């Protein structure tokens, strides 16, 4: 079940635009090569890449390599790794956000009708298509539009390929953008209603910077919603889950996608991601208001949905 989000997060990193993976099929060998290369000035700041420590400047290209390598088999692998549960999570995520305005908008709404949704790390369009479907079919909203942003062009290409099958292909309701979630100068301040990042933020080099950028682009009252792997609270379930993710998932990766290292990175990056409470603290630090407890555990905490609302600016 964890595999899909892992894929997704891998894709996210890969989306960063500057990345041109030299050896897209072997991420760990990439790591070694990158470490051998001469160091630049700002390379002394380290970050983690799975269980390894790598210079911050390199994480982006490493993650890019991972996602480039998995892009083609992303869907099959997600289903196999999560036993299909990721679909239930994503449906629940979209339903709880209830995108689209069922009520006619008012005259004084200057920002246009419908919601402006930004789906970060949404390369394959899983979330974006679900949200457009929900807005159209449930709320009868033909105006809501989604921008899919991903750092990895190969994941975006995968999403563009899939969008041909949807009714939103070639309409202004769906657009694609390649960009780094930590710095998106093409998106103006206060312009987005809903910012989603599903199984992506785990792969960001600087998560706090991405949260701050989300705060910048959201309209006052806009919502930041994030679904990400988290910490399992039940020790029994945790044991079984760890067994599955550290033994079964890399093996499935090897058998199905022929790439063990990428999937090894995926489970390690899940292990490294902060717990529900820590991540909630980071969301608050970026300036968001937290509704209620701030997060919702899915399947015992294997994944969690985090939400934050940008406060209205106090005049």
């Amino acid at each position: 079940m964890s595999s899909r989000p892992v894929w997704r997060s891998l894709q996210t990193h890969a989306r960063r635009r500057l990345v041109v993976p030299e050896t897209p099929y072997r991420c760990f060998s990439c790591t070694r090569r990158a470490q051998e290369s001469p160091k630049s000035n700002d390379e002394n700041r380290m970050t983690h890449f799975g269980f390894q420590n790598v210079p911050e400047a390199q994480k982006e290209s490493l993650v890019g390599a991972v996602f480039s390598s998995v892009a083609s088999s992303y869907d099959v692998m997600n289903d196999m790794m999560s036993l299909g549960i990721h679909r239930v999570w994503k449906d629940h995520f979209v339903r709880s956000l209830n995108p689209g305005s069922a009520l006619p908008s008012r005259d004084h709404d200057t920002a246009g009708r419908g919601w402006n949704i930004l789906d970060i790390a949404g390369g394959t369009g899983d979330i974006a298509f679900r949200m457009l479907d929900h807005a159209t079919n449930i709320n009868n909203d033909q105006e809501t539009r989604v921008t899919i942003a991903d750092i990895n062009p190969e994941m975006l290409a995968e999403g563009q390929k899939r969008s041909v099958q949807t009714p939103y292909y070639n309409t202004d309701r769906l657009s694609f953008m390649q960009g780094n979630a930590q710095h998106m100068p093409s998106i103006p301040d206060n312009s987005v209603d809903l910012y989603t990042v599903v199984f992506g933020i785990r792969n960001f080099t600087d998560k706090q910077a991405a949260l701050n950028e989300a705060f910048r682009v959201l309209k006052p009252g806009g919502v930041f919603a994030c679904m990400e792997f988290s910490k399992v609270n039940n020790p029994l379930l945790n044991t079984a889950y760890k067994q599955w993710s550290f033994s079964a998932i890399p093996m499935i990766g090897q058998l199905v996608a022929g790439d063990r290292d990428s999937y090894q990175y995926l489970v390690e990056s899940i292990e490294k991601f902060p717990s529900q409470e820590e991540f909630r603290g980071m969301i608050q630090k970026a300036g968001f208001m937290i509704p209620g407890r701030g997060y919702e555990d899915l399947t015992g905490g294997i994944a969690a949905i985090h939400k934050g609302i940008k406060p209205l600016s106090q005049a």
Partner: protein
Amino acid sequence: MTRSQSLLALSRRYLSTTTTKPTTTAAAAAATATATTPGRHTFCLGRTQTQTPQQQPQCLQRLRHTPPRHPIRSYHSAHHPSPPHEYSNSQTTILSAALRHVPSHGFTRDALTLGARDAGFLDVSVQLLPRGEFDLILFWLASRRGLLRSRVEEDALLQSPQGPLSTDQKVKILVMERLRMNVEVRDKWQDALAVMSLGENIPSSLSELHSLLDDILDLAGDVSVDASWYSKRMALAAVYTSSEFVMTRDESVDLRDTEEFLSRRLADTKAVGEKITGVKQCLGFMGSTAVGLGRSWGLKI
């Protein structure tokens, strides 16, 4: 939890009556107040002796939701000064605005969305309320409960020209007053009851019902600390909820049908209570007779 609460209250009450020594002016004032409202006691028990006029306000600050002119609370809420609600400012703004749309849109997400728009938020901002329409219902209940208390404390709802009212009369007035607040949402209230009866919402709904009944009995001046603390609340819960159902179908002027229904149910409750007391007395008498008879035959009972 309720049990320990009431037992604790009992012991505290006992403490207050035995240890209060009016040595300072503040304590004397408190003692006077205690004397005028029998069965009540100062909130800051145990400090009464050392209180100075400067200390008293500090002590009262612990009761965040108590109006300053009511330094004296009866036992049941003194240890748990039930806050009207636990929503943040933004949530309260949206919910208050949404309540204005309830008569037309019901307790729905639409009402919440319109409320959010009124408050200057976006449609998506209703994510601030994780429980959606149930948050709106809870806010309605809690805010009406606060309103009921302020009616009594500020509008003198329970003052009668014919002299002091009995506890039963006060309970009836309070229940009717609370039901009248629902008149404007009468058509929508059955939907709300349906949402409240969903499995995940039942605990919160019951807890809110308990708070309301607690408030009603407190405002009516009920100070029982024995087993009737429970029986009274349970009986009133049955009467209140059934009256609520009648209210949703009541087309009469000023809820006259509901009021009659309520009077009959309260009378029933009283009659049942008297019957039970009678039966208990009868059984007790027969039991003691049997014991006496046995002893007269030489049994070692």
